[in-house]
């Protein structure tokens, strides 16, 4: 197969459809808009439905309804629109419904939103942050699998760079193994309002003839599920970190710039490596602890006021060597990262941090 030149949004749409997504809805908001347009163009031909909702709140609740029938469903926005979806995402978690949420973010300021969530209740959202389009294609397919496997909403943390960059790419179906059947929970309309009717959630009390476990037991069960996810779904990547004295931690597309700088500084003789959480949640705690062991500098380069650094502080081998070297960086258009998404800036900040005496650190 000859590669095709595809923009990131189009490649993600192809991957979603290849993964079996048959219901997609959203409200236009750059840089998510192109993904919605691509799905609107392509999904009907695959036998699916794409709806341009009237708001993000409407979109997430439409998607919830589709997910409740067992359909592979997805929605998305940028971080601002996903703020409006928080109630729906929490309800999806509570109802144990699978949904893929695409955050085509305008920057890196949605780390807390993705990893902590803004809805109520004890839930988490598995969040994958691809570094480039080929990885976004793989992550999209993996997320549909994970959503079904764990019956939970999941997030792809993309951005303007992934949405708007084009690459020559072949999109191939990935096989992640078998999944449990959906026929014991999906609402199929075949049982009406009798005592046998299915429910997704009414405080887990069930019905008179089929009592449920109750809210506390239901939440305990959900909590156990997220604990299992945390144990088994951590993903990360290291680059030239084996002998690194200086480790730069970054996520998403920023990591491509960091790795370029790692190569350049290695040529200059600096023992630099990088660490990239692929899953923002569950954060790869053990991987980071191992990678940071013995490092004199752990430098966190994220384009926000300091969000992922909280997780790095929790899990690094030595908190005293951690330093934030990124910062808020927004393009004048407001649609994407600004000047700090730049290899020269990364290089300069790494050099400066390494040259700063420990006593002068924050």
């Amino acid at each position, binding site marked *: 197969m*000859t*590669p*095709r*030149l595809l923009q990131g949004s189009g490649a993600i749409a192809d991957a979603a459809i290849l993964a079996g997504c048959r219901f997609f809805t959203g409200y236009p908001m750059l840089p998510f808009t192109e993904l919605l347009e691509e799905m609107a163009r392509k999904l009907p031909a695959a036998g699916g439905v794409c709806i341009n909702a009237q708001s993000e709140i409407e979109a997430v609740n439409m998607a919830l309804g589709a997910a409740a029938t067992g359909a592979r469903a997805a929605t998305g926005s940028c971080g601002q629109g996903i703020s409006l979806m928080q109630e729906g995402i929490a309800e999806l978690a509570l109802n144990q419904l699978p949904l893929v949420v695409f955050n085509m973010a305008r920057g890196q300021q949605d780390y807390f939103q993705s990893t902590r969530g803004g809805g109520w209740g004890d839930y988490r959202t598995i969040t994958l942050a691809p570094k480039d389009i080929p990885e976004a294609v793989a992550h999209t397919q993996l997320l549909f699998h994970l959503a079904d496997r764990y019956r939970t909403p999941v997030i792809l943390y993309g951005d303007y*760079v992934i949405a*708007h*960059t*084009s*690459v*020559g790419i072949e999109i191939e179906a990935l096989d992640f193994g078998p999944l449990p059947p959906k026929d014991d929970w999906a609402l199929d309309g075949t049982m009406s309002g009798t005592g046998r009717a299915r429910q997704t959630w009414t405080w887990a009390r069930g019905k008179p003839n089929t009592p449920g476990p109750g809210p506390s037991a239901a939440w305990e069960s959900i909590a156990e599920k997220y604990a299992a996810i945390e144990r088994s779904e951590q993903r990360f990547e290291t680059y030239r970190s084996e002998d690194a004295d200086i480790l730069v931690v970054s996520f998403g*597309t920023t990591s*491509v*710039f960091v*790795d*370029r700088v790692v*190569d350049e500084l290695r040529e200059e003789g600096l023992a630099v490596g990088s660490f990239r959480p692929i899953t923002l949640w569950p954060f790869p705690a053990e991987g980071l602890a191992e990678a940071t062991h013995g490092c004199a500098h752990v430098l966190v380069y994220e384009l926000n006021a300091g969000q992922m650094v909280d997780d790095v502080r929790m899990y690094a081998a030595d908190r005293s060597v951690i330093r934030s070297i990124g910062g808020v960086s927004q*393009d004048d*258009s407001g*649609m994407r990262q600004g000047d700090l*998404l*730049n*290899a*020269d800036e990364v290089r300069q900040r790494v050099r400066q941090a390494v040259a700063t005496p420990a006593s002068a650190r924050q």
Partner: protein
Amino acid sequence: MERAVLLTGIGGQGVQLAARTLAVAAVQSDLEVMVFGSYAGLMRGGNTDATIIIGDAPLRSPPTVAWAQAALVMHHEYWSGVRDRLVPGSVVVVDRSVFKGEMGWAGGTAVEIEATGVATEMGNGRGGAMVALGALAAASGLVDLDHLQAAAHEVLPSYRAEHAKANADALAAGFALVADPVALVWLAPARAQ
């Protein structure tokens, strides 16, 4: 080996279409390609830029770069941001029908052509970027004319298909303006330092 091409102009000149045409031609030439276009909401009259990374192996470069080996310049307004990133030995195609003033650059080979003028004479007044792209391909040795012309058909949506032949002709006209490659992109250094 990876090399970068920068394209700059103002909205409406066809910079993004030229970038996509070059990228498709490179894909069809079995090269690895990445394109990052920047145009935000500035569809007409504002800055429009594109960065194309081309390589002969899976790309490791980020989508925006500090150094480039070739450029297509359709307007003087945003030339300085391109100029400062060109390594010694680069090749630049400039549309002199639009570009005003001195280039102030002696770091490589400038191919100055009346791209928009040539396109207008061909009855394709908005095909200046295609003429310039044809010239850039000839001057840099990046891709051949056949792949470029095939790409001109592929990049247009079906409702614009009637313009594909005119664009392919504009590419050929630009290609013909440069007799031989003047600065092979693959021979230029990766970085200035």
